[in-house]
């Protein structure tokens, strides 16, 4: 990315190229018009959220979760799952009892 690593609370500007790169990473085919609009809007949002960098957090531990929880495991017992036909009925495309998807491998692979 062309932006520089943020320092001293200043947010880097997000340009059209950065937005296009991030959109590609997120599998979003954004239009030219959206690139222009998002670059301005996200720049303003990024400036605002960059305030978190001004917080004096010292050696404060991060909170990932509001309620402290350890991992939860269920008993290793088979339980009924959703019926296959019901799940496939809600899929955009199905064939022979499976999801049908577009080509995943290229010609040469």
């Amino acid at each position, binding site marked *: 990315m062309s932006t520089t690593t943020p320092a001293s609370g200043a947010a880097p500007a997000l340009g059209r190229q950065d937005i296009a790169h991030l959109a590609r990473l997120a599998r*979003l085919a954004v239009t030219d018009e959206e690139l222009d609009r998002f670059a301005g809007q996200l720049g303003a*949002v990024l400036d605002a959220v960059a305030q978190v960098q001004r917080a004096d957090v010292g050696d404060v531990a991060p909170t990932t*979760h509001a309620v402290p929880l350890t991992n939860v495991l269920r008993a290793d017992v088979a339980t009924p799952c*959703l019926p296959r036909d019901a799940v496939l009925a809600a*899929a955009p495309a199905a064939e022979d009892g499976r999801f049908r998807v577009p080509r995943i491998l290229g010609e040469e692979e």
Partner: protein
Amino acid sequence: MSDLTALTAVELQAALAAGETSSVEVTRAHLDRIAAEDGALGAFLHVTADAALARAAEVDASGTAGTGLAGIPVALKDVFVTEGVPTTSGSRILEGWRPPYSATVASRLADAGTVLLGKTNMDEFAMGSSTENSAYAVTRNPWDHDRIPGGSSGGSSAAVAGRLAPLALGTDTGGSIRQPAAVTGLVGHKPTYGSVSRYGLIAFSSSLDQAGPMARTVLDAALLHEAIGGHDPRDSTSIDAPVPTVVEAARRGAGGDLSGLRVGVVRELGGEGAREGYEQGVLDRFAEGVALLEAAGAQVREVSCPSFGLALPAYYLIAPSEASSNLARFEGMRFGIRVGDDGSHDVDEVMALTREQGFGPEVKRRIILGTYALSAGYYEAYYGQAQKVRTLISRDFSAAYDDVDVLVSPTSPTVAWPIGARVEDPLAMYAADLCTLPASLAGVPAISVPCGLSDGLPVGLQVMAPALADDRCYRVAAAVEAALGAPLTDRLLERAA
């Protein structure tokens, strides 16, 4: 019977139990009102009229109507999956999808004998504060049709305030139950994180999302809360603890005696030196609400929570980051729409085209922001830092609760704004969540209760309590409601008469 849609859930319960009406009559009255009013209000995305009448007839035949919530109609925000009933989360990407299963809260309401009226409009994937980000419809505020009903649970707020449903469920990630309740004159409660199941709730930000009740009175909200709360083995973040006794607390609070209760007014949320962006009318109604608490015997003092000022930037890093991950599942392969699958595009291109066409602008903005905040080289500066700020906010709550039993603030800095006013300015939209975000980030319960009108529009007072002390929220809210004399939405009835 008089107009059945004017009755609260508690009144409907009594009328059903006494045999003065039937669930079919109650359900038909609400369906008729939906048919008459919802063209203008836009509260519902899908109305399950035939299924509702059939269900109501079943409940009547079973003889259970009036027991608990049996026979009483409810509306569900379209974020809850409902087996066989279209569920979109307000997004084009799920257009036409009929889920093969139901959310735990939907199943619990069905088991309790409630009658599902339909699914309510919302900001797409619950991202917004006005419901204008819905891909399908504009929802209007029953108090003024040119204004927003709040969001993201704006279909639920419009439905209940407009008497299209006596009760509705919403979800709250950063204020999406409390703010729409506040701007439509309703009671809305965000339960303690983990105390209501998230199974079958289409995820936006998993560490923050929480389902909760919206109603015209505190006691109605409490009844709905008890029907949906409690441990669910299908949600790994579900707390295995008894549901707080919120109905009892609401009844107790309605007695109007808060003697001995210690109330902290949060300085950083509309107090001295922190009033930028707050409307005077909101601050005035809030101050009057606090005076009511004092008159009821509460000991009121000002409390400082210095990190609350950082809740907004922390939230708008954490929530988009989690959303960018959660929304990866919408790729057009297993459910929802698929775009560009004509043989000329490979799977990556089909995913990108599906997401381009399926997601609206706010969802795209948040996915891009979240992808950025989580990317290598930026993670620590943004997401990591925001999570540390989250710790500071939790510490502020803990310190405050050493001295007081509940914290209060306005629910939203402003009354409902005109439709369209903030659509192109995401930051202005985000500012609506200023007061609701701290409780979201800390996972503590918070309720919004009406505390009067400003320029004819409702103002909400927020009551926050420690984790699992949801009953305190209901007790204090019920005392405010009792002091004001009648549910605020009764004014809408008087106006219509």
